[in-house]
């Protein structure tokens, strides 16, 4: 398969991730969208790595996964914290900081 296909797929995934940020009214889904975006990047890395015939692409995905895990942990902790304050997961409920 040509590299272009993978990249287009990755781009599509990335765009879907960004769209998710807007479409959903749930903090957890927002986090999932971010995960989608990271996975899109991972796909690109692996594809590029394959293109260059090097392992770097694959290795970088490990790091990305680690980061994603760390982010997920912190993000979910924050979601829990927020939920404790307002009993809501709607991002629109958290606009006490503005202007």
């Amino acid at each position, binding site marked *: 398969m040509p590299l272009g296909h993978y*990249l287009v797929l990755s781009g599509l995934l*990335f765009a879907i*991730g*960004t769209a998710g*940020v807007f479409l959903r009214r749930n*903090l957890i889904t*927002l*986090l999932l969208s*971010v995960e989608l*975006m*990271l996975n*899109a*990047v991972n796909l*690109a*890395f692996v*594809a*590029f790595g394959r*293109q*260059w015939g*090097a392992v*770097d*692409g694959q290795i*970088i995905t490990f*790091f*990305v996964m680690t*980061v994603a895990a*760390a*982010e997920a942990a*912190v*993000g979910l902790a*924050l*979601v829990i*914290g*927020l939920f404790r*304050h*307002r009993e809501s997961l709607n991002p629109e409920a*958290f606009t*006490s*900081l*503005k*202007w």
Partner: protein
Amino acid sequence: MTSGQFDAVIPIICVTLAGLVVLLAEAFRRKGEHMPIGGLAIIGLLGAGAASILLWDSNAESFGAVTADNFALFVNLVLVGVGILTVVFSSQTVDRDRLPAGEYYAMLLFAIVGMMLMGQATDLLVIFLALETMSIAVYILTGIRRDQQQSTEAAFKYFLLGAFASSFFLYGIAFLYGVTGTTNIERMSTAIAAQSMSGNPMILLGIGLLIVGFAFKVAAVPFHMWSPDAYEGAPTIVTGFMSTGVKAAAIAAFVRVFLKGLDPMIADWAPVLWWIAAATMVVGTVVGVAQTSLKRMLAYSSIAHGGYILAALVVGTDVGKAAILFYLAAYALTNLGAFGIIAILGTRERANDDLRDYAGLWHTHPALATLMTLFLLSLGGFPPTAGFIAKWYVFSAAIGSGYYGLAIIGVLSSVVSVFFYLRIVVMMYMTDRDARPIPPPVHPVAMGGLVAALIGVLYLGVLPTRLIDLAQQSISTIF
């Protein structure tokens, strides 16, 4: 350790160890026992500072991914200063706000580790990891006042948007990797230079996405919207830390990536950054005008200052790079001082950051008011403060390369910014105190920190030569 493989990372190791020690100390601390945790943090930071000084001019490299060139060391020193001042100011706020001291200082130190690494890393992947380390620590610091919804909310917004930005950033790295086959900045530069790539859409995509990622971290318009909220919600002293440390680290990495790795493409990215810098300067100042919360106001001011730094980045000459370094140092001292004062004046219940809280401050806390005034004047760019020299340096760089437009936008927006800085002064000096409770007395350690910052600000304003020379040396060694 003579010129071992680890030389370049000694400063980072120092801070990391300090972070771990702090964490352990907290773990072994009995309830109610007082422990000089902040002192431990300072020792670690001083170690890092000493190491940075010792490494000066050594150009040590470690692991092929970390360098200790003067540029990085300069940034390290700024970060050490930021860290120490933050720790010093925290002495007043940690107990008052009942923060978990060990974790707080540990996060602070881990954040600094990330920041230092951002300056020192020569590999995009390491930069990304460092960025994440720093970011995660700062997210946590932002949300550390779990009892306040605002704090958590700020942390979440910052986190979510930061995560997006990281994705963009990472995607950018992916494209650059795809084009050049490496994430090492040096090699990337060579690869780009080897084959003319200015028309390659992939590399342009990579550059664009990297710009987004970096611009987010330095809170450049239009990627700035998280910063006022995050700054307002975070504990004040953390805000100060964020606005200086995070910015310094992000700029350091920005400079390294763009002026070293992507230098061959400068004709492609400079125009974009030109617009971003201009918009940042303008929007930062203009929106700051309407603010009534001091923290928010300084958040916008911080955005604007990011714009000035970006302007120097656009220029990209040696003068510009040195100007960036000088600006970072001057701005760090000044802004931390200002935020330190706000932090000191806060209480557990309220941040006391509304403009009206400052009415008549001169009458109740003349010393604090005077200090605040001087910091604000420095932010506004009045002589004889560091802020003036810094701005002059940046504009000088811009004008020297013919960027008159940027310089004029810059000076005019600094005039506008003076308006809101002076509003604070007006409140402190020219308005009578209303019936608000008088804030608590100042912790002597914190006061010492403020005075030290002030001395720094004035020293850099009156005798900037040493730092200018240092900045010039720093950039001349690597670029």
